[in-house]
């Protein structure tokens, strides 16, 4: 993604906009794909679907059909935890946001005694991994899928505790 050539090709093919923030252009294929992926996640969250397909494809999926939505949360959390500079402290912050349900910047600063500049960087990182949402009231909340599969965060032992 670092070189101009790759960015241009991605922008044209998928409608990815590279400004100060990377986003998807409405109505372009990349945007449609994210909508479709949401539907795929919903399908794979359906236990009946997984169990019926598992019984049909036992040899291809001996461990059973995975819950892709849950797997996606796990991938993001592991990615976050492995960030070299801020990984561990970001997980600690995320656990705190999970514990209190919602919190403003000042509250997090007071509870965790983290320098505001670093806290802002951490919140940006959590946002990048789509693990938190900032609401209209300037509160930071856990993303919906993280709340649903919060056990994965709890299982990240020795990180951020």
């Amino acid at each position, binding site marked *: 993604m670092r070189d101009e050539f790759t960015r241009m090709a991605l922008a044209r093919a998928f409608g990815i906009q590279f400004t100060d923030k990377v986003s998807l252009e409405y109505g372009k294929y990349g945007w*449609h794909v994210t909508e*479709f992926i949401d539907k795929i996640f919903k399908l794979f969250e359906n236990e009946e679907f997984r169990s019926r397909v598992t019984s049909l494809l036992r040899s291809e999926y001996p461990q059973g059909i995975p819950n892709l939505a849950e797997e996606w949360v796990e991938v993001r959390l592991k990615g976050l935890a492995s960030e070299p500079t801020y990984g561990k402290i970001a997980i600690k912050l995320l656990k705190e946001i999970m514990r209190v349900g919602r919190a403003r910047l000042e509250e997090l600063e007071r509870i965790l005694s983290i320098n505001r500049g670093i806290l802002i960087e951490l919140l940006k990182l959590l946002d990048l991994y789509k693990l938190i949402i900032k609401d209209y009231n300037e509160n930071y909340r856990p993303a919906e899928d993280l709340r649903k599969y919060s056990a994965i965060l709890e299982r990240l032992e020795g990180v951020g505790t």
Partner: protein
Amino acid sequence: MLNFINALVNISPSRNIISQLILLLPKDLMVVRYSYPEVLSEEAKEFLDRCLGIEFNEIVKRRSNSFAESLYTHIHKLFDWLDSDEVRSDLAKLMGTHIMSIPNPYAEWARLVLKKLLERPEGDKILVFIRMLVEHGSFIVNREGYSRGAKRPDWQPFLNEVKRKIKANPAEFEDILRTVIGTSEETIDEGGTPRSSWIIYLKHSEYHLDLILSEHKTTWSGWSHWYDHIYRVRHRSTIKSILKELLGG
């Protein structure tokens, strides 16, 4: 990237029977029983109904807001996306591969459909109609408010010319029109400015070759207004090259 492309290709209707069934619904149960006997076992029906959202009554159809409905929508987006030379060229550059190795699900599907249509007794006529359609490119279906010198609607004269050329009787031609142009429409864009408004429909044909974009545009100035209804033919170069393979010339 290769995984991503392979995943998309594997759900395209030319390679996946579930996608194919979902794309072609609604259909009469008897037709589904004949064309897709493997999906009518109790176990398969229950899976398709409860997990994917396909309703099996006298008419087999997609349930609204179901996964089947999402897949149906996505297949159309995928068709349009990969039937673009620019997109396939960019993907080839990103993957460091030859453009010919980037699949085109629409072309694969169109090749299957056109071959199937050619097997019908009136197959030659249908394909000649499609060839004339893609060669023409766009049509004025209707227009109002223009002065005498303006270009006149040419859709009906075109149809008359096709009818004469393929020597189709009125009933046969109506069937051909239903197959090639389709009867159902889906709104894909609408909007306006203080002096104009437009709405664009995609016409869904029997096998979803979906060749026609139907554009309605009205423009106002003072007490005058102009209205245009235009058909634009899509996927022209893909269809042209497949027809060349099948019909020669």
